[in-house]
C-alpha cells in the first residue's frame, strides 16, 4: 500500500530532489551584490496614505522601495553583480539620497507594465520610477510628480535613403506593430499630412524591428527611446537615422499614490533639484565648492547654505546637496545612461533644458 502511495507524491515532488542540487551549489559561487536585508519587513504606507505618512513610513523602514522596469536598456537593468543601473534607477537613488542622505538606501522592485500601478496602490512600492506615461485617466487615480523623460513616437530610416524629414516619407514601407497605439498615431500622422504609406505589420515590436533590420521596409516607427535601443542592436547603428519629427506625446514620470501630497513634494523636488542643478551648473564634481563659495543665492538655497528650505518639505536642508553629490544633476544622469557616450546615443532634444539651445522642455520652478 505504502509502496503504491509513493507513486503519486513522486510525480509532484521528485523533480525537486534532483533540482535541489543546483541552487544549493550556487550558494558557494560568487553571491550577488548586497541589496541589503537588514531592517524590518516591508510594511509600506497603505493605499491612500494620509498627509506625510509615506515619508514617515519610509523613514521608519530605513529604505526606499521603487518600482522599476523588469529590464529596459538604458533605463533600468541589473549589472553582472546584481546592482541596478539606468536612468530611472538613478532617480530612485537620488530620492533615497534626498530622504536619508544615502543613495544606497534604495531598493528596487521589478514591475511589469500590467501590474505596476497595482504594485504602487497595494503599497509594495513607495514610488514608481518606471517610464510611465502621464495620461488623463492615470492622473485621475494617481499623481505624477513631474516628468523626467519626454518620450514620443518617431521614425527611423536608413541613411542611404537620403531622407532627413518625415515629409519625405510619401509612399514608404513602414514596419509597425499591429494593434498598437503607435499604429493609430502613424495612421493619423500620415493622413493629417496627406502622405501615403505601405504598412508592413507584425504582431510584436520585436518582429517589426527585426523586419526593419532585414530591410523588409524603409521605415521603423516606435517611441524614441525604443528606436534608440533598436538602433543600438542593429548591425551598423551609424547607418540609421532617427528623424527629428516626434508625432506623439509620451511624458514619462514618477508616479505616487494620491492623497499624500507631502510625499509627492519629496519626489517632485528630487527631480526639480536635479534639473535646477544642471541649470545652475552644479555637478557632482563641483557641488562641494559651489556649496562653500557660491554667491548665487539660488545655488545657496538649493544646496542648503541658506537654511530652512529642506525642512519645508520634511527633509534636511542639504537634501539637494546629497543627491547631487551622490547621484548627479539631470544632465549627468542623462549622459551617463542614455547620452552620446552610451550605445543608445539619445540626443537631448525635448529633454534638453528650457534654457538650452535648441530649447527643450526640461524646466523646474525656482527654489525660493
Amino acid at each position: 500500500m505504502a509502496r503504491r502511495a509513493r507513486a503519486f507524491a513522486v510525480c509532484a515532488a521528485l523533480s525537486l530532489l534532483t533540482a535541489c542540487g543546483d541552487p544549493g551549489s550556487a550558494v558557494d559561487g560568487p553571491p550577488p551584490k548586497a541589496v541589503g536585508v537588514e531592517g524590518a519587513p516591508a510594511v509600506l504606507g497603505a493605499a491612500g496614505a494620509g498627509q506625510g505618512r509615506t515619508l514617515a513610513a519610509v523613514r521608519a523602514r530605513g529604505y526606499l522601495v521603487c518600482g522599476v522596469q523588469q529590464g529596459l536598456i538604458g533605463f533600468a537593468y541589473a549589472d553582472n553583480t546584481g546592482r541596478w543601473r539606468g536612468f530611472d534607477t538613478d532617480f530612485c537613488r537620488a530620492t533615497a539620497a534626498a530622504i536619508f542622505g544615502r543613495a544606497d538606501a534604495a531598493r528596487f522592485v521589478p514591475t511589469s507594465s500590467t501590474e505596476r500601478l497595482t504594485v504602487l496602490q497595494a503599497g509594495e512600492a513607495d514610488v514608481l520610477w518606471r517610464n510611465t506615461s502621464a495620461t488623463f485617466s492615470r492622473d485621475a487615480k494617481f499623481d505624477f510628480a513631474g516628468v523626467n523623460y519626454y518620450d514620443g513616437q518617431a521614425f527611423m530610416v536608413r541613411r542611404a535613403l537620403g531622407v532627413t524629414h518625415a515629409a519625405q516619407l510619401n509612399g514608404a514601407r513602414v514596419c509597425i506593430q499591429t494593434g498598437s497605439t503607435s499604429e493609430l498615431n502613424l495612421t493619423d500622422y500620415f493622413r493629417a499630412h496627406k502622405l501615403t504609406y505601405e504598412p508592413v505589420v507584425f504582431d510584436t515590436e520585436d518582429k517589426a524591428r527585426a523586419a526593419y533590420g532585414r530591410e523588409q521596409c524603409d521605415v521603423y516607427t516606435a517611441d524614441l527611446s525604443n528606436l534608440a535601443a533598436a538602433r543600438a542592436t542593429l548591425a551598423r547603428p551609424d547607418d540609421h537615422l532617427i528623424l527629428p519629427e516626434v508625432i506623439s506625446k509620451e511624458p514619462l514620470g514618477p508616479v505616487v499614490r494620491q492623497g499624500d501630497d507631502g510625499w509627492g513634494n519629496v519626489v517632485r523636488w528630487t527631480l526639480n533639484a536635479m534639473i535646477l542643478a544642471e541649470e545652475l551648473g552644479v555637478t557632482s564634481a563641483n557641488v562641494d565648492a559651489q556649496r562653500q563659495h557660491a554667491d548665487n543665492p539660488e545655488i545657496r538655497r538649493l544646496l542648503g547654505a541658506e537654511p530652512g528650505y529642506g525642512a519645508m518639505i520634511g527633509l534636511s536642508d542639504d537634501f539637494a546637496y546629497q543627491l547631487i553629490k551622490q547621484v548627479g544633476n539631470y544632465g549627468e544622469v542623462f549622459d551617463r545612461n542614455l547620452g552620446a557616450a552610451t550605445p543608445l546615443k539619445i540626443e537631448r532634444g525635448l529633454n534638453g533644458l528650457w534654457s538650452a539651445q535648441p530649447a527643450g522642455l526640461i524646466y523646474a520652478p525656482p527654489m525660493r
Partner: protein
Amino acid sequence: MSACAFPSLPTRARRSWTAWAVGLAVALAALVLVAPALRWLFWDATWVGQSRAACGPAGACWAMITARAPQILLGFYPAGHGWRVGLAVAMLAVGLAPLAWRRRAGLTMLTAPVGALACLALMGGAGILPSVPSAYWGGLALNLIVGAVSAIFALPIGILLSLARRSTLPVIRILASAYVEAVRAAPLIVVLFAAAVLVPLLIPPQWSLDKLTRAIVAITFFEAAYMAEAVRGGLMAVPQGQREAARALGLKGWQVLVFVVLPQALRTATPALVNSFIGLLKDTSLIYVIGVLDITGVLRNAVSDYAWQGLEPEAYIFVGLTFWLLCFGLSRWSAALERRAARAQGAPS
C-alpha cells in the same frame, strides 16, 4: 501490402537500398546543417568574460551565462544569504524524503507540505532571519520552488476535487465539476493577472499577501484542476471488484478509499500527473508577467545591460535548454516509476 506493387525487385533488397540512400541523405543534410550550428554553439563560442566585448564575432557568447550564474540560479537574493535558498530547497527535499522508503511513501502527503511551508518561511525570514521581500527572489530557484510548492499543495486539493466530482451528492458533484471546468477553460496567464491586479483591489491592503504569494496560490488552485482530472482518470480505472472485495473484508468506507482505491488510482494516474507537472514547471516562466524575475526574466534583464546587449539568442537557447533538461529528466523519472509499478503489479504479493 503496398510493397507487393513492386514485384520486380525483392522487397528486402530494395528496402535496404532505399534505407542506404535515405540514411546517406540525412547524414549529409545533418553535416551541412548541424555542423555550423555546433561550431557556433561550442567551438567558436566564448565561455568566460565580463561583457560582450570579450566574445568573438563568430560564435555564441556564453560568457553572459557564466558571468551571471548566481543571478540565473538565485535571482537578486542578497549576498551572503544564498545559503537560505539552498537550505530552503533542502527542506523541500527532506519533506519529500519518505518517497525513497518504499513502505513510508504515503507520509509524503504530510511531510511535503510541511517542507514547502518551511521552505517559503526560510526564504522570507520567518521572523527570525532578516526578511527578504519576494522581489529579491528569482532565477531558476524561483521556477523550481514555485513549481514544486504549487504541485505539492495542488495534489491534495486535486484529489479532493476528483473525489468530489465522483460524489453521490449532486451539490458537491456539480460544484466540483463547475470549478474544474471553469479553471481549465481559463489560460494561466489570465489567472495570474487576476491574482496580481484584481485581488489587491478586492482585499483591504492590511490583509493583502505579497504578489509572489498570490501568484503561488493562484497557480496552486489552477494546477489542482488539472491534477483532479488526472486523478479522476485513475479512480475510474480501479475495478469495481476491488471496492467490493475491500468491503467484503470489513473495511470501512474511508479505509476502502485510502488503502485500496486511492493507491491504485494514483499509480495509474502517475503518467498524467507527471505530464501536468511538466506543463506546470514550464508555465512558471509566466510569472514574468507579474514582474517577478524568474530564469527567463533574469536573462531578459541581462540583455538590457549594455554589456550584453543583443544576446537574446543565447539567452533563449540557454533557457530552452535548461527547461528541456528539467522536463526530460522528469519524463525519464516517470517512465522508471511506471516500469517499477508494472513490476510490482505483476509480482505475486
